[in-house]
C-alpha cells in the first residue's frame, strides 16, 4: 500500500511538475536563505576560531604578571619542569612613527622578544637583530613602511617601581627608540600575534628585548607563553609553577645586613605586597616586617630637621621601640632638635590617600629613647632603595616624586647624607608605621629574618610556598578561551535569520498561496478520489506525499545553494556591511551538518503549512454541501473602527503634549493607527454593499462587491504590504542617528566634548594648573576646559565592535563625583539601594572582601558580557586576588561602551601599578571643540594621544546597530519584493477562482478591456491601501526620529517605497495581462 501510494504520488507529481515550479523556486529560496544564514553564523564562528588560532600560533597557556614583571629565566625553568616549550616576552602598549614621513600609528602592541620567541612559534628562521624591529603587515600597510625604513617607537619605560607608588621618581616615564624595519611579518609568521580576544587584526611591532632593557643584567618579562603539547590542565601548570617559583622571580631579593647579622628580603617594587608577606611569614613565622618612610620634617619647638627617613620596626626585634606614639630618635636628631627622652617631636610626612595622592600629614611623638651611633638603630640598610633617592650624591639631587623644598635642606643635612646616606633618624613601632604609611603597594619595605638564617636556608624554606596567583601571576588557557569566545560570539546565524525574518515569512506566505492554488487545481482530482471511495486520510496522505516529492528536492537544492548566499553575505560583511563586524577577514566555510540543519528548518514549516492547507481543503470539500455562507456585516465593525480611531488620535495628541514620552507614545499611536487603518479599510470594503441597501456599487464596477463578500481576500494582501512597509520603514527611521539629545548632560556623551585615549599614560593631573603647565596645556584657549581622568586596566574590548564573547573586559577607574554633581549620562537600570540617590554613587562605596560595585553600558552587559544588573563579574586584581565586581547599573548607550567602570579609589586599591591616566573625558565650550582637539592632540602628542569627538565615538558604536538595521532593511526589502510577487500570486489566484465570473461577464457583453480595468482598479485599491496604511502608520510611529534627526535614510526609504510601488504595479499589470479572452472562454468550454 505504501509503495502504491508513493507510486501514485510520484506519477501525479511528475504529471504536474510544471505547476510545482513556483513552489520549488520558493522553497529553494526559503531553504537557501535559512541555510545561508546558518552557514554565515558558522562561517563567522569558524573565521573567529581560525583567526584566533593564527594569532596565537603555538601559544596555548599564558601566564601574565599584569603590570608587574618576572625574570625571563622563569620561562626556561617552566619549560624544563613541564616538558613543554615556553617563551617569555614583554607585552606593552605604545605608538610608532616613521622617521621619514612622521606617519603615526597609535595604541599598537609592542612585543619585546628574545631569540626563542619565533622558534617557539615555529618560525625558526626568524630572529630580530639588534637595532632592528619587525612589524606586521597591517601596521606596515597603515604606515606605508617598507624594509629598511627607520621607525620611532614610543613606549613606557620599564621600571620595577610603579609610577604611582610613594616616592617613585617623577622623571620621564616614556621612552623612545629609533629602529630599522628589518622585516614585515605576514600572519603566518606570527605577524598578527595577539593575546587579546578580538576579530580585529592587531598592529604589532616586535623588538629585540635586549634593545629595551633598562638594566642589561636584568632580563624581565611580563608574559610567559606555553605550547600546551601535553594538554596539561591549568591546575597542574599552577602547581608546577608554585614548585619552581622563587622569590627572585617576582622581584623579591635577599641581602645580608652586616650591621645586625640578619638577612632581609627587599622588593624591586620597594613596597612588599601583603600577600607576599603573608606567604613568607607562613613559611618562616619569625620573619618580621619593616617599613621605612620619608619624614618631611621633625620639629621640636623652633628647631626643625627636614627630610629624614623614619623606620617602623617590630617590637619583637627592637625591644626599645615604643608602642603607639612613642619614638626612638638617633643621637644626630636628638642633637639637631635638642630633644631628649620625654620631649615631644612633631613629625610631618606625605601620606597616600585612597587615590595614591600624597597629602602632607603630621603627628606628635614622644621621645622614649635616644639611640647611640653604633647600635642596631644605626642601620643604613633600613632605607629602601627609592630609585630617585638612593643613588643621589646630595639631598638636593633627590627625585622623590613629591615636592622637595630645597631651601629647607641645610648644610648639616648634606653632611649627614654624605656620611650616613638614608640611615633613619627616627623609629616608631611597626604597627603605628603601618597605620600611617601602609599603602596600596604594600605595608612593608623589607622583611627581616632571624640572625643566623642564611639566604639559602630561607630560599629552601620558601620553596613551593609562594602561590603564583598571590604573586600576581594569572594563568589562563588563552587558546581554549579564544575558541570558547569564538564559539560564544555574536550568533550571526540567528541574527541573519531574525534579520531575514520578513523575507522568510514572505516566502512562507507566498508558498501558502501557491499551495492553495495547487489545491484549487486538484479539486476535480480530489472529487474523483472521493467518488471512488478513497478515504479523506488516504487522499490527504497522497496530496501530502505529492507535495513532499516536489518540495524536498527544492529544499535540498536550496540548502546547498545556501552556501552561495553565505558567500554573498560574507563578501558583504567584509565590505558594505563591515560596520557590523569591524573586519574584512571573514571567510565562507561549508558545514554539512549546518546544511542538513538548514534543510530541515526550511522543510518543517513548509510541510506543516502543506499539512494544514491540505487538511483544511479536504474538510471544506467534504462539507461543501453543508457550507453556510455568512455575509460579513459592516455594523458589527463600527464600534471597533470608532474606538481605535479615537485611541489613535488620543495617543497622537499626548505624544505632542508629553515630550518626555514622545518616542513610546508615537510608536504606540503609529501601531494603533495601523490597526485603525486596516479596520477602516475593512469597514469601507463592507460599505460598498450592505444587504438591503442601494446598489450603487455595481453600476461602475460589479466586481467591487466581490470583496464586500470576501473581505479577507483584500485584507490579506493589504496587511502584508502594510506590515512589511511598516517594519522596513520603522527600522530605517530608527537608525541610531546622532541627535542633539546625545550631547546633553544626560545623553550618551554626558555633555563631554572629547574622548582622549593615550597609548602611554598621562601622569599629570590636568585639572590642576601645575598639571596643565607640565603637560603644556596652559594656554588661554584651554581655560574653560576640565577633564575626567580615568585609569584603565588591560582587558578585551567588550563593546559591540568585538564579536567575541568577552569575560575579561577592561576596567576603567574614575572618580564619579562630577557625574553625580552634573547628573551626567543616563541609566537604563540600577540596583535599588535606598541610600543611593544616583547610580554613580555606587562607585564611591569602598570595596570590602574584594567586592566592589561596577557600571557598564547596557549593550556591554547584554551582548559582550552576557550578564545583568546585580550579577557579579569575577576578575583578578593586580595581586592575583579574585575581584568581584557587582554590576550596580547599566548605562544607556554611552561613550564608555566596551569598558566596565569602577570607582577610582577601588581601582587604585586593586590595580595600584596602573599609573597615570589613559582615558581623558574633556568638557568645555562646545564651539571650541575643534580647537581643543587640535591643542590636546598636539601638546600630548608624545603620549600617543588619540582625540575623538564624543559624538563621533558614539556614532561609531551606532554603526554596528545601523549596519544590522541596514541588513534588515535590505532583507526586509527583498521580503517586500517577495511579498509583492506574492501579491501577484494572490491576484492570479483570485482571478483563477473568479475566472468563470469574468467569462460570464465577457459572455454578457463586457469588453475584455473593461474586465481588465475592473481587476486593475480593485487591485490598485489594495496596493494603495497597503502602502498608505504602512507608510502613514510608520511615519506616525517614528515621528520623533523623522522630525528630529537628519540621519533618517530618506533616499533609501523612498527608493524602497518606489521599488515596492513599481513591483506592485508590475505584478498588477502582469496579472491583468494574464486575463485573456481565450483563458476566459476556455473556462466556459465544458465539452
Amino acid at each position, binding site marked *: 500500500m505504501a509503495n502504491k501510494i508513493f507510486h501514485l504520488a510520484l506519477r501525479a507529481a511528475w504529471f504536474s511538475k510544471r505547476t510545482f515550479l513556483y513552489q520549488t523556486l520558493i522553497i529553494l529560496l526559503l531553504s537557501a536563505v535559512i541555510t545561508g544564514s546558518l552557514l554565515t553564523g558558522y562561517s563567522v564562528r569558524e573565521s573567529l576560531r581560525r583567526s584566533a588560532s593564527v594569532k596565537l600560533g603555538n601559544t596555548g597557556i599564558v601566564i601574565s604578571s599584569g603590570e608587574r614583571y618576572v625574570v625571563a629565566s622563569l620561562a626556561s625553568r617552566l619549560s624544563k619542569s613541564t616538558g613543554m616549550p615556553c617563551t617569555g616576552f614583554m607585552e606593552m602598549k605604545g605608538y610608532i612613527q616613521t622617521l621619514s614621513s612622521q606617519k603615526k600609528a597609535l595604541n599598537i602592541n609592542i612585543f619585546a622578544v628574545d631569540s626563542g620567541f619565533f622558534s617557539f612559534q615555529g618560525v625558526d628562521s626568524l630572529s630580530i637583530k639588534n637595532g632592528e624591529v619587525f612589524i606586521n603587515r597591517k601596521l606596515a600597510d597603515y604606515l606605508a613602511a617598507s624594509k629598511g625604513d627607520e621607525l620611532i617607537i614610543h613606549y613606557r619605560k620599564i621600571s620595577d617601581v610603579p609610577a604611582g607608588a610613594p616616592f617613585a621618581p617623577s622623571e620621564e616615564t616614556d621612552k623612545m627608540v629609533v629602529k630599522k624595519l628589518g622585516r614585515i611579518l605576514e600572519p603566518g609568521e606570527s605577524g598578527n600575534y595577539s593575546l587579546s580576544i578580538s576579530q580585529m587584526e592587531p598592529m604589532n611591532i616586535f623588538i629585540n628585548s635586549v634593545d629595551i632593557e633598562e638594566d642589561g643584567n636584568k632580563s624581565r618579562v611580563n608574559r610567559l607563553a606555553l605550547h600546551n603539547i601535553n594538554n596539561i590542565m591549568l591546575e597542574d601548570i599552577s602547581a608546577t609553577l608554585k614548585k619552581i617559583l622563587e622569590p627572585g622571580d617576582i622581584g623579591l631579593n635577599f641581602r645580608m645586613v652586616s650591621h645586625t647579622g640578619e638577612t632581609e628580603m627587599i622588593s624591586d617594587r620597594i613596597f612588599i605586597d601583603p600577600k607576599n608577606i603573608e606567604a613568607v611569614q607562613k613559611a618562616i613565622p619569625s620573619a618580621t616586617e619593616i617599613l621605612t618612610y620619608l619624614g618631611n620634617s621633625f620639629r621640636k619647638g623652633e628647631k626643625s630637621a627636614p627630610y629624614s627617613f623614619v623606620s617602623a620596626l617590630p617590637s619583637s626585634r627592637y625591644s626599645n621601640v615604643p608602642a603607639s606614639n612613642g619614638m626612638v630618635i638617633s643621637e644626630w636628631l636628638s642633637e639637631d632638635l635638642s630633644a631628649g627622652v620625654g620631649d615631644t617631636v612633631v613629625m610631618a610626612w606625605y601620606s597616600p590617600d585612597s587615590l595614591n595622592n600624597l597629602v602632607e600629614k603630621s603627628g606628635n611623638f614622644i621621645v622614649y629613647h635616644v639611640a647611640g651611633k653604633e647600635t642596631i638603630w644605626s642601620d643604613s640598610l633600613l632605607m629602601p632603595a627609592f630609585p630617585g633617592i638612593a643613588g643621589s650624591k646630595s639631598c638636593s639631587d633627590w627625585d622623590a616624586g613629591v615636592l622637595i623644598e630645597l631651601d629647607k635642606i641645610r648644610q648639616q643635612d648634606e653632611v649627614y647624607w654624605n656620611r650616613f646616606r638614608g640611615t633613619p633618624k627616627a623609629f616608631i613601632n611597626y604597627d603605628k608605621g603601618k597605620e600611617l604609611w601602609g599603602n596600596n603597594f604594600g605595608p612593608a619595605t623589607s622583611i627581616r629574618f632571624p640572625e643566623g638564617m642564611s639566604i639559602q636556608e630561607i630560599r629552601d624554606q620558601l620553596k613551593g610556598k609562594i602561590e603564583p596567583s598571590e604573586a600576581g601571576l594569572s594563568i589562563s588557557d588563552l587558546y581554549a578561551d579564544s575558541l570558547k569566545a569564538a564559539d560564544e560570539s555574536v550568533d550571526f546565524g540567528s541574527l541573519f535569520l531574525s534579520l531575514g525574518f520578513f523575507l522568510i515569512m514572505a516566502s512562507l506566505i507566498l508558498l501558502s498561496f501557491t499551495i492553495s492554488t495547487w489545491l484549487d487545481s486538484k479539486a476535480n482530482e480530489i472529487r474523483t478520489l472521493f467518488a471512488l471511495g478513497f478515504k479523506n486520510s488516504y487522499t490527504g496522505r497522497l496530496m501530502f506525499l505529492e507535495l513532499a516529492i516536489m518540495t524536498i528536492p527544492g529544499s535540498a537544492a536550496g540548502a546547498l545553494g545556501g552556501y552561495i548566499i553565505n558567500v554573498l553575505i560574507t563578501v558583504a560583511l567584509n565590505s558594505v556591511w563591515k560596520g557590523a563586524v569591524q573586519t574584512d577577514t571573514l571567510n565562507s566555510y561549508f558545514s554539512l551538518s549546518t546544511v542538513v540543519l538548514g534543510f530541515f528548518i526550511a522543510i518543517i514549516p513548509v510541510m506543516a503549512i502543506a499539512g494544514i492547507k491540505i487538511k483544511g481543503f479536504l474538510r471544506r470539500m467534504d462539507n461543501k454541501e453543508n457550507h453556510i*455562507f455568512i*455575509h460579513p456585516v459592516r455594523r458589527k465593525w463600527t464600534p471597533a473602527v470608532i474606538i481605535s480611531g479615537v485611541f489613535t488620535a488620543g495617543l497622537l495628541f499626548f505624544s505632542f503634549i508629553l515630550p518626555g514620552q514622545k518616542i513610546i507614545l508615537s510608536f504606540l499611536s503609529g501601531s494603533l493607527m495601523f490597526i485603525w487603518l486596516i479596520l477602516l479599510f475593512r469597514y469601507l470594503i463592507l460599505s460598498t*454593499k450592505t444587504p*438591503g441597501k442601494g*446598489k450603487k456599487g*455595481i*453600476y461602475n464596477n*460589479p466586481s467591487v*462587491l*466581490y470583496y*464586500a*463578500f*470576501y473581505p479577507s481576500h483584500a485584507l490579506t494582501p493589504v496587511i502584508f504590504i502594510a506590515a512589511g512597509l511598516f517594519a522596513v520603514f520603522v527600522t530605517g527611521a530608527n537608525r541610531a542617528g546622532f541627535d542633539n539629545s546625545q550631547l546633553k548632560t544626560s545623553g550618551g556623551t554626558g555633555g563631554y566634548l572629547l574622548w582622549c585615549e593615550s597609548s602611554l599614560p598621562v601622569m599629570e593631573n590636568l585639572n590642576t594648573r601645575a598639571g596643565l603647565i607640565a603637560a603644556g596645556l596652559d594656554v588661554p584657549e584651554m581655560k574653560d576646559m576640565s577633564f575626567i581622568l580615568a585609569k584603565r586596566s588591560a582587558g578585551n574590548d567588550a563593546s559591540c565592535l568585538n564579536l567575541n564573547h568577552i569575560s575579561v573586559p577592561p576596567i576603567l577607574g574614575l572618580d564619579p563625583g562630577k557625574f553625580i554633581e552634573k547628573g551626567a549620562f543616563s541609566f537604563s537600570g540600577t540596583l535599588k539601594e535606598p541610600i543611593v540617590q544616583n547610580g554613580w554613587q555606587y562607585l564611591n562605596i569602598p570595596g570590602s572582601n574584594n567586592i566592589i560595585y561596577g557600571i557598564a553600558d547596557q549593550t556591554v552587559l547584554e551582548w559582550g558580557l552576557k550578564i545583568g544588573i546585580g550579577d557579579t563579574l569575577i576578575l583578578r586584581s593586580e595581586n592575583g586576588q579574585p575581584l568581584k565586581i557587582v554590576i550596580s547599573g547599566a548605562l544607556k548607550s554611552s561613550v564608555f561602551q566596551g569598558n566596565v567602570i569602577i570607582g577610582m579609589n577601588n581601582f587604585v586599591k586593586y590595580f595600584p601599578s596602573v599609573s597615570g591616566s589613559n582615558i581623558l573625558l574633556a568638557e568645555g565650550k562646545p564651539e571650541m571643540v575643534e580647537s581643543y582637539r587640535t591643542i590636546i592632540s598636539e601638546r600630548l602628542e608624545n603620549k600617543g594621544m588619540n582625540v575623538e569627538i564624543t559624538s563621533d565615538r558614539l556614532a561609531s558604536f551606532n554603526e554596528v546597530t545601523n549596519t544590522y538595521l541596514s541588513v534588515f532593511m535590505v532583507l526586509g526589502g527583498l521580503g517586500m519584493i517577495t511579498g509583492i510577487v506574492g501579491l501577484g500570486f494572490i491576484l492570479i489566484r483570485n482571478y483563477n477562482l473568479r475566472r*468563470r*465570473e469574468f*467569462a*460570464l*461577464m*465577457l*459572455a*454578457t*457583453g*463586457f*469588453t*475584455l*478591456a*473593461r474586465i481588465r480595468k475592473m481587476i486593475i482598479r480593485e487591485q490598485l485599491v489594495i496596493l494603495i491601501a497597503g502602502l498608505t496604511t504602512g507608510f502613514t502608520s510608520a511615519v506616525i510611529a517614528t515621528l520623533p526620529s523623522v522630525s528630529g534627526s537628519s540621519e533618517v535614510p530618506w533616499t533609501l526609504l523612498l527608493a524602497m517605497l518606489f521599488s515596492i510601488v513599481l513591483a506592485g504595479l508590475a505584478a498588477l499589470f502582469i496579472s491583468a495581462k494574464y486575463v485573456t*479572452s481565450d483563458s476566459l*472562454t476556455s473556462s*466556459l*468550454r*465544458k*465539452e
Partner: protein
Amino acid sequence: MTENTIILSLDNLSKSFPQRGLVLDGLSLEVNEGDALAFMGPSGSGKTTLMNIIGLLDKPDTGEIIFKGRAISGFSGDESSGYRSRNIGFVFQDHLLLPYLTIIENIFLPLIAASHSKEELEERKDHLMGLMKKAGIDTLAEKYPFQISGGEAQRAALVRALANKPSILLADEPTGSLDNANASLMGDLMLEMNGKFGTTLIVATHSYELAKRMTHLFRLENGKLNRSL
C-alpha cells in the same frame, strides 16, 4: 416578425484545436429569425465551440458568420462585446450567477455591460420583473444565489440572458444540471420567450426531450451539421 428572414448565416466554418484536431469542418447553416434550433451530438463533437463562435467568444479558423446581413467574424474584441451585449443572450449548463450579487443584480448585469444609464435601467426594471414573474422567481429578487435552488438559479440565468432583449438566445446545455421537472420548466420558458418575443433560440443539448421541442434539430457529427428534424 417576418417569416424566412435570415438572421444568422454560418458559411463554411472550420475550427480546430491543437489537442483535439478538427472540431468544425466546413460547417454551414442559415438560421431564420424566430427559429428554435437544437444541436445534438456526442461530447467533444463541437457544440459548445459552435455556440461560442456564434456568440463571438471564439473565432473560426476559416469561414464567415453573417449576422443580419453583416459579416461579423472579423470583429474586434470590443465589437464582439458590443455584438453580444446588443444581440446575444447566453445560458450555460452552470447558472454562473455571481455569488456576491443578488438575483436582481445578476439579472441587471448585461444591462450594465451595455452601459445603460441608471434611468434606462429603471425603465427596464418592469420588463425584467415581468420576465422574473414568468420564470417564477420574482419573489427571489433580493436573494443571493446560494440562497435559492439550482432550478431557480438556472431560471434566473435565463432571465439574465434575456434582460437585454437579445435577438438570439444561445443556451449551452441549459438543462444539463437540472432534474426532469426543472428541465421541462426551463424548456417551457425558453420556448415561451421564443414564441412571445420572437427571440431566435439556439440550444446545444444532450437531451432529446428538449431538442425535439425545437422547430429544427441538427446533429453535429464529424464537424458537420446534419438535419434530423
